[in-house]
């Protein structure tokens, strides 16, 4: 019983909680750098969620080795792992872009505070 609660927590509610922490940060933070961090936290939540969907109890890494010839192991689902790998690469590129953009905004307006930027723009 306790075990089931723990696994649900770590596989479903945990990643979703991390995602919501990121979303909360994105909605409440006024600093552009902190917003970039929030987006990253959100991405981590989603990536963890996908990885945990591919989890198979006491399975092995889905790699075909010599050992497979002698016994038939249970493999974890490799597809979510492949998806997450792609998602991580994309999120790295987007983070780099956001940070570059923040540098540009800072050099043009002299601040990274969203409230002040909003006042300047209007």
């Amino acid at each position: 019983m306790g075990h089931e609660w723990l696994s649900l927590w770590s596989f479903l509610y945990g990643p979703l909680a991390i995602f919501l922490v990121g979303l909360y940060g994105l909605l409440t933070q006024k600093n552009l750098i902190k917003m970039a961090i929030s987006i990253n936290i959100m991405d981590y939540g989603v990536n963890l969620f996908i990885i945990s969907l591919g989890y198979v109890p006491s399975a092995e890494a889905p790699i075909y080795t010599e050992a497979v010839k002698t016994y038939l192991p249970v493999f974890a689902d490799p597809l979510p792992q492949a998806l997450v790998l792609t998602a991580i690469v994309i999120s790295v590129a987007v983070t780099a872009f956001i940070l570059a953009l923040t540098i540009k905004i800072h050099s043009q307006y002299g601040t990274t505070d969203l409230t002040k930027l909003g006042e300047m723009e209007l």
Partner: protein
Amino acid sequence: MIMQNPVLLIAVPLLLAFLIPVFSSFFKGAVRFIPVLAGGFNVIATALLISRASGSVTVTEIGGWASAYGISLLFSSQIGYVILAVNLTALLAIFYYTLNERDLGSPLAYPIAFTLALSGANGMIMTGDLFNLFVFMEMTAIAGYIIAVHKKGYLGTFRFVVLSSVGSALFLMATAALYNATGFLNMTLAGKSLGALAAPFISIISVLFIMALSSEAELLPLNGWVAPVYKESSGAGSVFFASVFSGAALFAVIKVMLIVFGNNYAYVHQGLLVLGLVTLAAGEAAAFKQSNLKKMVAYSSIAQSGLIIAAVAAAMRSGVLHNGLFSAALFQLINNILAKALVLLGIALLGLATLKEIGGAGTRKKWLGVFISAGVLSLIGMPGFAGFWSKLFLVRELVGSGMFVFTLVFLLAALFEAYYYLRFLQSLFLGKSTTAASLPKTSWVTTILLFVLAALIILIGFAPDVIIRAISGLSLGGVL
């Protein structure tokens, strides 16, 4: 024959985009021709593909992997017309960039961004795989971020990046959950296995997908970036946002809804219908108040996205696709892509920002004024222009299927739209300019770009049956 493979529409621009940095170190002068080459190739290849395609959807399995395990591309002559409209406007925008805006920013980054965006947009339209759609969505979005900063509009771009990142996180989550529940990433197979799942799960997944795609398709709730980005983007950039990205993203929404959620999920379609109508009303109301021209077109673009999605949702509502309504929505999508591109290119060529500044500019630049008017009149739905027919078909089909509330909202929105676009035309021809600045010179080559679009719009306006016959029956052709 090799030209029959639709994957070339994605692969060739992708390859050319990555060749740009290589070329730039050997033949610097050649870089500017590469995006034109990519766009030109795609237009010709699409025309060839359409001429050989039949009305039914052909599934191309990439690398020989079966649909269940690999990526598949969907193509039919009807999808081809959407691709043709998207690629043609992209080619004209690239021409415009090459002729007028090459000195605006880095001579390397923007050709790469335009070429990548072209590849991604075609991928979004054709792919039959959910995760592949995510990758193409991100590819177009990142190219879009670069295009959005072309005129140093950093704040609008920041908003775009944030909203689109939220959208992509939601899309990823929905895709993973759907894969976990059905075991497929392929849209057709996932859609078929969806029936066994609980209704709350299906509605949560569908809401996640719609929200995720809403940022690029310019629908509520994630479309807050549209107006600032349009306002601050370059001429070619605004055409990419209004015609290429939103056209591709709208078609992606339609595809996901039709293939994955195409069966009898009335609650999903009802929700989408309401979302579309709210977007339509909010977009028109916001456009009505604008004095900045590009922002006005931006909000009108949001409204049109809402209209098209609402019409598609209405067509799917009864569980069996209403072919007439669906074709009318698709026709409206194509007309919108062409007319928006024409109006935005015209505004960019005038180089003026607001309704007051533009006063009388149409009398000083007669041809430009005539071409912009063709685009505007088509958007309003004046007889003799392409937009008239799609709106007429929409009203006819809506009344025919007894959707009177939708018809009422649509007609009221069209009235609003006619008012603010006619105000624009009045200012263009009869107003007095508030700025003494002289209008920039337009070369005859650039004028030809606008002529092509205007001629196409008028041509469709006089022979709408050719287009409507070509795009109708998309739903009857098998997979879609």
